[in-house]
């Protein structure tokens, strides 16, 4: 294994087994919030135990180790083909070691060759920047929460949502209502207002790279992010949909331009087992620094 492969293997291991600090803090806050002696509190206690066990045993937090999505910011001249090769090798090894489940299935034949490699797996988004270092962020997003994601085309009469910020709010809150506990709440929403059907979902997922405790630079969106979390937490859906006080741990909203004819609101739901990590790499491929 070369240095880059080793770094990526360690990135996968840590992403699969360790909850990032910002998310862990939010989960501890949620455990405090839930009423003592309720099944919501029991669920949060099990979640907290699970986080500790996974870290200590270096094993997956959740058995659904999810879609493997790399976000790479790289300098000019960075060898993307070599990175792709290294990422594939690291995924294969991580699967053998049990950091990842054999999780990738041929959609036509139903065959699972046990490697996690195939069309779309892993997914790698490259982006060039003028800095000299490369940073690699990884999200492992499970199928349960992916399945409750939703895309609304506004106006939407059913939920009385027009093409304005209030309409966006209604769409986002409807997604929370429809998801109930099925996405393994308390959850975190990544939202994109605008874009097309593909870029909208893609950008909504990208919002999940933001730290949970950051602030949106756009004041209106910052307000909406807070309002969605506060309102969702009044609905009584609670952890796992058992009822309770914490339905969402956070909401992050981004905006893309749209066509005059289209107005999409795309919502990606992330489960409490929010597996997201990142590293800054030295030119040798070794890990210089962890990002979360």
């Amino acid at each position: 294994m070369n240095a880059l492969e080793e770094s990526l293997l360690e990135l996968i291991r840590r992403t699969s087994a360790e909850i990032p600090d910002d998310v862990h803090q939010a989960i501890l806050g949620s455990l405090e919030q839930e009423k003592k002696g309720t099944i919501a509190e029991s669920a949060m206690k099990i979640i907290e135990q699970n986080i500790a066990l996974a870290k200590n045993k270096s094993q997956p937090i959740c058995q659904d180790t999810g879609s493997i999505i790399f976000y790479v910011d790289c300098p000019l001249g960075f060898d993307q083909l070599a990175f792709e090769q290294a990422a594939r090798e690291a995924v294969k090894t991580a699967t053998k070691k049990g950091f990842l489940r054999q999780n990738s299935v041929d959609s036509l034949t139903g065959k699972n060759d046990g490697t996690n490699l195939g069309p779309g797996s892993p997914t790698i988004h490259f982006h060039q920047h003028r800095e000299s270092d490369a940073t690699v962020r990884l999200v492992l997003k499970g199928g349960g929460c992916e399945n409750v994601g939703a895309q609304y085309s506004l106006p939407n009469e059913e939920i009385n949502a027009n093409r304005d910020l209030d309409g966006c709010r209604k769409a986002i809150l409807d997604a929370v209502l429809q998801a109930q506990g099925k996405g393994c709440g308390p959850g975190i929403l990544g939202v994109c207002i605008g874009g097309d059907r593909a870029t909208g979902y893609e950008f909504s997922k990208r919002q999940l790279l933001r730290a949970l405790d950051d602030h949106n630079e756009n004041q209106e969106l910052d307000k909406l992010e807070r309002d969605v979390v506060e309102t969702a937490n009044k609905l009584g859906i609670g952890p796992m949909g058992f009822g309770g006080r914490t339905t969402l741990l956070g909401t992050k909203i981004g905006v893309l331009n749209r066509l005059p004819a289209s107005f999409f609101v795309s919502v990606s739901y992330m489960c409490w087992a929010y597996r997201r990590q990142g590293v800054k790499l030295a030119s040798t491929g070794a890990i210089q620094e962890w990002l979360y």
Partner: protein
Amino acid sequence: MIQLSTPLAETAVRDLKVGNEVAITGTLFTGRDAVHKYLHEGGQLPPEVVLRGGIIYHCGPVIIKDEQGQWKCTAAGPTTSIREEPYQWQIIRDLGLRGIIGKGGMGDKTVAACKEHGCVYLHAVGGAAQVLAECVRSVPNVYFMEKFGAPEAIWEFQVVGFPAIVTIDARGNSLHKEIFAASQAELAKYL
């Protein structure tokens, strides 16, 4: 916490109520999308897989072979159950299931079958793969490994103290229906 051991007696199952916390000891068989579709289409189970009085677990675990060549379960949380809604009622009726473990709840057909035939839906904490894998003390067998692949195979688990919450009981109650209705009414206040 109510202790349950497999095989489950019908009376013990009918006594359970939505909101009860249970701890399960005994045998669980995993079964998810491929297994449910297979059974629905008339597929037969190997004779060793006895679901009568038993519990099916909606789970695609991470399993590795240890140095001694034994199966070892390293992650085993529940998968979303609603995908089995078209098939589950029939499996309860025909195979005599007494319990289903999963997450996210199930729909009206399953609620009705639970009531009619004496079965309960036990909600495990989604994502809690390590806490739940700790309860899996051994993995004696696997069936349909070649046919369906590891996550979709039928794994036989011996479990001790496996925690879950009754969210659909055998009296026609569903916590999921209650929470949906209440949260929908609540949301209307804030729109």
